[in-house]
């Protein structure tokens, strides 16, 4: 990783030189509030505000823009990235610390272009790489809602970034590589429902921000939509979302997708870790039509080429035997002898995308941490899994995770004790 960072620093410094020569400034400052073309009275329209409230739920804005236990939308949560910590700012209409002095044009510029009202580039921890697809109309509704909130006076912390990442103009190089500005353009060959789903998934829902592998520069490859990836710093694996052959969600019906997003669990799997948060704060509040649209779009993602793993040079028989024993003692009572789970209660492990994901991180961490499915309107009293961190040693965790990844038709590489050691002490946030 270090060599990548040094490499990145070199690229960035070279980029800085070019930037200094080509363009001395960042983005353009936006219009001040007093010069806004949007009528202040129009922003008070209750229907527009209600629409905006719904859209902020779809966009899961409050998740990042609310500190743990803090006032909603007042900022304070620190988003960890491999380059440093980026605190999410205050979105309430406080004049000094929030959006109280922002015009709609400035807000739209941030969402659409990733440039703040003074013309500074925003760090892409704010997912404008996805939000750029949001329509102007929807952005207006979101702005109207945010402006209707009670102002909270709470200044954002400064980003914890070292050189060169603290020089915002270095983002010019990053943007040239990874950012394509532009609203969602409907595909006329597809149904309105498909287009609605694509708009939500690619835009406001910003699913790609986690469900695509990021490279050493923290950028996403544009040709790998929703193909799954490890979430940096948080260290969870966001699975491939294709339901076609060899996709992470192969075999999921549209209803399974709707169920998971609506209630936190489905016949094929349960949301946990960062996805539990997404369900809890965002998708459970989405209406049925939008959830179905999302499912329709995900079901149209292409089949994937089959991943062939190198067979392990280790003799896996003793590991699988040890894993089978741990499984029978600790897991089978709930997940079933064949990994079939219990409908509506415990998720199946057979064919489970988080069991079969390439890294093994999810299964290791779920075994260590246990936890509840998110409590939602559709599943208000969820069942839970005991944490095994205190009860199983690294060898047993590696064995049982390897066992479930290679049983009942599951086909994923083995995990080793060193993987368990690594994730045993990963911070939970």
């Amino acid at each position: 990783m270090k060599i990548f960072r040094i490499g990145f620093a070199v690229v960035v410094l070279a980029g800085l030189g070019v930037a200094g020569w080509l363009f001395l400034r960042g983005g353009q400052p936006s219009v001040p509030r007093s010069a806004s073309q949007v009528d202040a009275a129009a922003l008070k329209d209750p229907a527009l505000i209600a629409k905006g409230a719904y859209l902020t739920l779809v966009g899961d804005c409050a998740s990042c823009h609310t500190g743990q236990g803090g006032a909603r939308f007042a900022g304070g949560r620190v988003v960890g990235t491999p380059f440093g910590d980026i605190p999410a700012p205050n979105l309430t209409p406080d004049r000094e610390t929030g959006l109280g002095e922002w015009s709609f044009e400035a807000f739209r510029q941030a969402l659409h272009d990733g440039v703040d009202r003074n013309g500074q580039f925003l760090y892409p921890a704010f997912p404008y790489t996805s939000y750029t697809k949001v329509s102007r109309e929807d952005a207006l509704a979101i702005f109207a809602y945010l402006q209707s909130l009670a102002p909270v006076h709470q200044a954002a912390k400064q980003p914890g970034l070292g050189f060169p990442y603290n020089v915002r103009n270095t983002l010019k190089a990053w943007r040239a590589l990874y950012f394509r500005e532009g609203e969602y353009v409907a595909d006329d060959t597809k149904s309105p429902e498909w287009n609605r789903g694509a708009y939500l998934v690619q835009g406001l829902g910003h699913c790609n921000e986690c469900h695509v592998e990021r490279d050493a520069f923290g950028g996403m490859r544009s040709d790998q939509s929703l193909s799954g990836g490890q979430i940096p710093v948080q260290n969870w694996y966001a699975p491939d979302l294709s339901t076609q052959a060899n996709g992470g969600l192969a075999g999921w019906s549209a209803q399974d997708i709707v169920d998971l997003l609506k209630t936190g669990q489905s016949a094929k799997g349960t949301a946990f870790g960062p996805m539990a948060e997404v369900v809890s704060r965002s998708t459970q509040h989405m209406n049925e039509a939008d959830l179905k649209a999302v499912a329709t779009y995900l079901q149209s993602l292409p089949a994937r080429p089959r991943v062939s793993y190198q067979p392990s040079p280790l003799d896996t028989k003793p590991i699988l035997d040890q894993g089978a024993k741990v499984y029978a003692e600790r897991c089978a009572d709930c997940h079933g002898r064949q990994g079939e789970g219990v409908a509506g209660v415990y998720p199946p492990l057979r064919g489970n995308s988080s069991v079969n994901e390439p890294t093994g991180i999810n299964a290791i961490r779920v075994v260590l941490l246990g936890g509840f499915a998110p409590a939602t309107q559709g599943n208000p009293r969820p069942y839970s899994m005991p944490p095994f961190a205190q009860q199983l040693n690294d060898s047993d965790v590696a064995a049982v995770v390897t066992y479930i990844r290679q049983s009942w038709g599951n086909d994923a590489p083995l995990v080793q004790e060193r993987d368990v050691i690594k994730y045993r002490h990963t911070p939970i946030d």
Partner: protein
Amino acid sequence: MCSAVLLIAAIALAGAVHAQAAANDPPHVPDTLKQRIASCTACHGERGEGTPDSGFFPRLAGKPAGYLARQLKDFQDGLRKYGPMEYTTRYLTPAYMREIAEYFAAQEVPYARSPMPRIAADALKRGEELATKGDPSRQIPPCAACHGTQLTGVQPDVPGLVGLPYDYLSSQLGSWRTRTRATVAPDCMAEIANRLSVDDISAVSAWLAGRELPADMHAQPAGSITPPLHCGVLSAEARP
């Protein structure tokens, strides 16, 4: 004879089929709260008995429901810092946390004695003094002023202190000082913990942990105390 053999064979076959079915049947899961909260009971015990020997996983059984619900909320909000608990409570609703709190509050579990530290007699005396009379010179109210005349707690928000392990009590007082344990403002226990010296913490924890248990360990009825400090956790509007 023949029919007897057939009968035995039939019984054996039925048994085998039954065993086969048991091996392939999906697990039977009872629809109980106890089953749902396996994530809690794995460490705290099925009835919230905790681990009195080590004091590491606190007892939950019989603690007032308002207090337990408040702790869950404080972990969720990051006021109490402990990764596994913050993770476990993160996506629970207030209603579900209340239900879980009530489950543990209703458990009647005998109190077990925990290992005691070696502590000098005059330190124990100091501990008793702090618990029962406080230290007015340093504005430390007696524990009994809030935690009940028998130190068994007060419904619905104040936990009992007797019967808890030394390690648990001293580490809680310590964590108020290191700000890994906090609650809604004004956080009067944080104030008091910061007025105690390190020796005071050992003294009062040891005296509480070693105290003879009263016959009735239940918390006193609601409204039976007038707290000497204004505490955020005791105000109705702060109730989770």
